[in-house]
């Protein structure tokens, strides 16, 4: 078999078809008509301006998380700890907002400081994961998972302890911030915030440009392909790894800040909304190519928002959207694996 563009496309289409087949089977076993389910998911995602804007609201933190992960994947790191980094971003944002909410300062200034605080929180937590990897020899997957647990515990402690509502510790989170401190909402929408969309778009363009068009991006790729060779060629491995963690932390922190300032307007126990793990799936699905991240993240966000219709209309569990996302990623990766194996076999054959 030859490694042609057509072959690659064929494998990808095959993988998607297989994923759909499995998803259909699951839907069928759940007693649902697959096409009805897809129809309602589609209607739930693009059926009206309101739901479409909900998709965009969900797209922003997902794309930010994916953007950060593309950088760590470029140096060959699995930054599982991104969930914790999003959480710390949200915690730092909330902290700044709580400190400044009664200051009388211009809301724009408070929001800017809060977002920057979120960036700081995400970056520090990512650097901690990076330091564990670089200086402690702790694999970033295990270190990241551990730090995720610590971040969740810290978040819950704050919500149920020092930052609780007066007399009440509630799963619904801290007291909401005043509407004047919400990220400005677009006219005609109840929750779409243009500023955060701009941040996400600028972010993914910056990541694309950095990876594909800069010397720094080239160095990251070199470390990712073969750290030893890169080191021999004079590229500092650990510095670039730490830099990639820091950049991912910036994006994770931004995602956390968006969750607090534009989505929930308070700190809630599951403030990361699983966007870190979902971002990992998007990055895997696009094969770490920044150019595809935005549309695929949009598709995943649409699936998430659209799937709310499943329990409402078809009385199905909305986690079926997760099944579809998971099988899609699994089969695309499997497709890559099978193709690579076949290529290897073909090369060996004289």
């Amino acid at each position: 078999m030859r490694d042609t563009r057509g072959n690659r496309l064929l494998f990808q289409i095959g993988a998607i078809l297989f994923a759909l087949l499995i998803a259909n089977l699951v839907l069928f076993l759940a007693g649902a008509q697959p096409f009805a389910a897809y129809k309602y998911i589609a209607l739930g995602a693009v059926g009206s301006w309101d739901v479409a804007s909900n998709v965009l609201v969900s797209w922003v933190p997902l794309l930010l998380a994916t953007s950060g992960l593309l950088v760590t994947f470029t140096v060959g790191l699995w930054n599982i700890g991104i969930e914790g980094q999003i959480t710390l971003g949200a915690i730092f944002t909330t902290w700044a907002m709580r400190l400044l909410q009664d200051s009388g300062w211009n809301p724009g200034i408070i929001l800017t400081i809060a977002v920057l605080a979120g960036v700081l929180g995400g970056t520090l937590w990512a650097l901690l994961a990076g330091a564990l990897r670089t200086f402690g020899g702790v694999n970033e997957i295990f270190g990241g998972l551990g730090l995720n647990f610590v971040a969740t515990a810290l978040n819950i402690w704050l919500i149920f302890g020092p930052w609780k509502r007066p007399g009440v510790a509630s799963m619904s989170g801290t007291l909401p911030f005043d509407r004047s401190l919400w990220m400005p909402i677009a006219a005609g929408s109840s929750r779409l915030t243009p500023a955060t969309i701009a941040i996400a778009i600028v972010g993914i363009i910056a990541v694309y440009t950095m990876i594909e068009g800069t010397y720094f991006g080239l160095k990251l790729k070199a470390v990712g392909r073969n750290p030893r060779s890169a080191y021999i060629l004079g590229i500092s491995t650990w510095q670039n790894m730490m830099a990639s963690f820091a950049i991912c932390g910036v994006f994770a922190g931004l995602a956390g800040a968006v969750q607090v300032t534009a989505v929930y307007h308070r700190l809630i126990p599951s403030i990361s909304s699983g966007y870190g793990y979902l971002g990992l799936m998007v990055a895997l699905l696009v094969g770490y190519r920044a150019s595809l991240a935005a549309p695929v993240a949009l598709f995943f966000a649409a699936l998430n928002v659209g799937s709310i219709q499943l329990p409402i209309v078809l009385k199905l569990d909305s986690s079926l959207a997760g099944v579809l996302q998971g099988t899609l990623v699994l089969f695309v990766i499997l497709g890559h694996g099978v193709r690579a194996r076949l290529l290897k076999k073909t090369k060996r054959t004289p």
Partner: protein
Amino acid sequence: MRNISKLFLLLVIALVAGSVAFAQNVPPATGPNLTIGLVMVGPYNDHGWSQANYEGVQYVLAKLPGTKLVYIDKANSADRPGTTVSQLGESLVAQGAKLVIFSSDDMTDEAIRFAQDHPEIFVILTSGSQQWKEGKNYLPLPNMINIMGKMEYMKMVAGVAAAMTTKTGKIGYLGPLINDETRRLAASAYLGARYAWVNYLKKDPAKLTFKVTWIGFWFNIPGVTSDPTQVADDFFNSGFDVVISGIDTTEAVAEAAKYTAQGKQVWAIPYDYAKALDEGKGVSLGVPYFNWGPAYLNAAKSAINGTWKNHFEWNDPDWKNINNLDTSAVGFNKGTLSKEASAAVDKFIGELGKGLNLWVGPLNYQDGSVFLKKGEKATDQQIWYLPQLLQGMEGQSVSR
């Protein structure tokens, strides 16, 4: 001068136009064939709070042919990450709902946001108090009604059942999160237990142990809340032989059944849902439950015929028959009770119906400070916003 007059006129017009634009009116009558949206915090079939709400709306559907229900359950950020409750409410509106019921106090922030963003939709915030003029958090919203049943009475009945049954004199209360509502319900159970202990059993109140352990939410969320199964086990393993559940799910009953099957006779009292007894035959002493049907029916009728008015209602049981599903907002279904305990429960319900009030001084807060002086009766506000547990109760009063 003319310019100033013009400016003044423009200002007046702008103010009038502005006030008209921002004044929120009652939504127009929906007419028949109303679609009701129901947002539930837990699964619709949880045998607890959410199911009681779900069946409350089913009652409306049965009484008002032509009405429809669209619902979304598990509306909490752990089960539906990335969504907000107001967004879920909008999904129901997209399916035709003109009246949306947010059936948990935990949805307060989002329900208020939804009501403000959608003045054309009727909103019920169950167990909230925002539309209570005399309440602490009064926020008039023309399209919102708050509904709650006087569960305090039925928790007192549960307390009586527990006190009449315990052999060790140790009653556990499996509490959800700590807030005004949960404090006053736990305190009510204690008041009922103490009343039976002193007046029916003629025992020393100092020898009654009543301990509250809070898990952190209305149901178990692994990794976030304490595990209610574990908490129930801890009670049963440390000499408590009756556990009154204050959470939305039935772990206490399941654990009581398990321990009893292993030869250690213990009991539990579930909560919220009239048929929750089905799960713990032989170990459930009874269930204090909400009957949302009649109140939801009234609200739906007022949305249909245009008589809706924002208000707060805290509905009484029907003392003629607390289990009358057409008239009583709360009830108590008796379970496995001894003859003596069953008679005591009936007697107590009779006394309550005749005006017995346990919220009368002398009563102290848990920290020893005076809540009610001798003979002083608590106001509705003092009960609703109970700031601490009562003296004689063990457990946290406020979240630390």
